[in-house]
């Protein structure tokens, strides 16, 4: 009999007033008892609607049934049949709008905590130190992956399991992409990302860092080097700015820069040389996960006040619900229906204020979105010394600027066939944020997996 308790088994967490001063992980993870209790809330529905909500179609009720039985190795095996980075996804997927949104339990009460269970199984596997990865039989074919973020790693892992000799090229000095530079330690510990990458290396994936493809080598040169297919997973690495006065002032950061200094370059640790000016009063512009990450990081650096400034209402915020709740509990102030129009600086070019206007939402337009418009005469100035802009990213331009034959749309997104993810250039595939613009880790992983299958089909069809 399933456990019919209406609420999810609570996740143990660091106390908000303790965690907002450290960079350790906020959610501490389930114990075996908690995981079993949560797993037994699953009804194991016949048509398992949750699976259709997962971009990589993890067989969710099957792995949950194994947790109830206590066979965690089997649970892990089921998850990793279709997912490459379970410890990552269990932590950062927007489950409430994916698998958990389809959960039958969620219709009347809270859905099953699928993400928490996935994380539990992945963490258990890592804690066992079981390096039972079997290197697949080589199939004699070589593929190159550009970018080692979630999309590239998934594509590489999927191809490696099929026997391909895969090389991943990464521009930074360390692999992981946004998982390393973007998502903070307190939400996704970097040691976990590196463990997942070690698993891929054990499968035979070769990762070359410090390689900016398009500069040091072109895609055509990769083909000359014997690679038969190329996957472009270069992400959405070109931060948008608002185009308002004062964005060049000292104390204005893109969220990418602020987070990279902290996460990748470890500015919060004494022993690292990375400089960062520790802000006191911070405004973060935007309402997505990146905005929440930046705001919560600013608190942890010791800021006295941190506000999220968002031009729509909280309902429209694209961030995961859990991130919004965590940010609020930690003391981030939410200023919704407010929009920055000018950043004010002193004579030395330092930020001393952010001028905003109040906004109101119009009736939904044809697209169903409620457009915000400024209320006349509602201008006011926020007393801040730092402004972090987290209003999204455009796709990175390096590859398409340096690769003849690779088409992209006016927004800079690489054009692909929806079914195969083939680009306009022969044997070159693309996916993730480089194609869609900034989206989620799991969608990028879904694309990486899809492209790997297309690459395999393409290479097999050539042999016929």
């Amino acid at each position, binding site marked *: 009999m399933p456990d019919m308790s209406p609420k999810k088994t609570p996740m143990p967490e660091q106390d908000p007033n303790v965690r907002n001063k450290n960079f350790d992980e906020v959610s501490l993870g389930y114990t075996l008892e908690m995981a079993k209790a949560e797993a037994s809330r699953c009804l194991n529905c016949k048509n398992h609607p949750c699976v259709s909500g997962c971009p990589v179609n993890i067989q969710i009720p099957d792995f949950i049934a194994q947790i109830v039985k206590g066979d965690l190795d089997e649970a892990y095996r089921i998850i990793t049949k279709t997912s490459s980075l379970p410890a990552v996804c269990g932590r950062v997927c927007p489950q409430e709008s994916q698998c958990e949104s389809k959960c039958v339990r969620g219709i009347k009460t809270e859905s099953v905590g699928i993400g928490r269970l996935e994380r539990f199984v992945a963490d258990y596997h890592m804690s066992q130190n079981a390096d039972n990865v079997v290197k697949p039989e080589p199939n004699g074919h070589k593929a190159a992956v550009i970018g080692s973020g979630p999309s590239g790693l998934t594509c590489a892992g999927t191809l490696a399991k099929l026997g391909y000799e895969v090389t991943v090229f990464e521009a930074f*000095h360390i692999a992981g992409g946004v998982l390393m530079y973007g998502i903070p330690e307190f939400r996704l510990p970097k040691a976990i990302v590196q463990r997942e990458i070690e698993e891929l290396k054990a499968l035979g994936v070769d990762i070359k860092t410090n390689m900016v493809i398009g500069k040091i080598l072109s895609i055509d040169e990769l083909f000359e080097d014997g690679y038969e297919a190329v996957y472009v997973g270069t992400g959405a690495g*070109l931060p948008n*700015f608002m185009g308002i006065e004062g964005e060049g002032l*000292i104390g204005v950061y893109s969220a990418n*820069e602020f987070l*990279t200094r902290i996460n990748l370059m470890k500015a919060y640790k004494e022993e690292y*040389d*990375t400089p960062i000016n520790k802000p006191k009063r911070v405004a973060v512009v935007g309402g997505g996960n990146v905005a929440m990450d930046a705001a919560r990081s600013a608190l942890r650096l010791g800021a006295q006040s941190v506000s999220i400034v968002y031009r729509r209402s909280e309902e429209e915020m694209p961030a995961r619900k859990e991130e919004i709740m965590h940010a609020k509990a930690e003391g981030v102030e939410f200023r919704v229906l407010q929009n920055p129009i000018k950043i004010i600086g002193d004579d030395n070019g330092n930020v001393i204020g952010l001028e905003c206007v109040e906004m109101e939402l119009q009736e939904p337009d044809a697209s169903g979105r409620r457009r915000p418009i400024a209320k006349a005469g509602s201008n006011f100035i926020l007393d801040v010394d730092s402004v972090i802009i987290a209003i999204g990213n455009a796709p990175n331009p*390096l590859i398409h600027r340096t690769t003849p034959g690779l088409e992209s749309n006016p927004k800079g997104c690489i054009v692909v066939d929806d079914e195969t993810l083939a680009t306009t250039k022969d044997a070159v595939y693309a996916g993730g944020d480089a194609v869609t613009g900034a989206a989620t880790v799991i969608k990028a992983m879904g694309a990486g997996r899809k492209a790997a299958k297309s690459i395999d089909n393409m290479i097999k069809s050539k042999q016929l």
Partner: protein
Amino acid sequence: MFKILEKAELNPSMTKMVVEAPLIAKKAKPGQFIIYRVDEFGERVPLTIADTDKEKGSVTIIFQKVGYSTMLLDKLNVGDYILDFVGPLGVPTELFNCKKAAVIGGGAGCAIAYPQAKALFNMGVDVDVIAGFRNKDLIILEDEMKAVSSRLFVLTDDGSNGVKGFVTTALEANINSGCEYDLVIAIGPVPMMKAVCNVTKPHGIKTIVSMNPIMIDGTGMCGGCRLTVGGKIKFACVDGPDFDGFEVDFDELMKRNAMYRDFEQKARSKDCRLLKQAEVD
């Protein structure tokens, strides 16, 4: 890991290093840069490529020991390895075939101006090189610059080499004596580049400047190197580092470059890792 093949002190504040990086050497063009990171705890620092040797597979960098991370790099010797060395980044300088060009370098900027002068000279352009230094002890690359120019003008701020003045002094004198430049390339401290533009603008001489803002990744991701060019935000790493000098907001760039000055001073203080290491050595 990237091996240091040669190291030479050009003057008390500047060092030249030749680094083994065959793939970068093969691709690099004048105006492009690399980013290095000395060790696990180090910053990522951009440096413009001073020269390459495709045969030997080496890249030459010349740096001024001004900040903590350049001092850390300077502690390495021939045979040592630099942990990370990535490039060639940025868009190469658009060197077009013109009749007469002035290539202007200020201090450490001469290290970057030199490959530009060399490329133009090899294209058959009549090149004047104008190089400015604070005093005669800081003069670098004099023979090299002489070899790739029709005329070389070396000036010092204090006149200690016998020619007192700024680079603009020589540039103005040349223009006033009837020199018809079609192109000016200016590389050096931001105030110098601004001053050069103020000289060339009234004459409508196309002037290219090379920007040196603070950077992290060098691939467009962080946006830290942004500057205002023609009223629009541009990223020095992917849109530059060269820009039309008449369009650049130099004043904003000067302020942004001072962003971590306090941090730099702290780094030079007693707590710094370099000094601790020096005590151990």
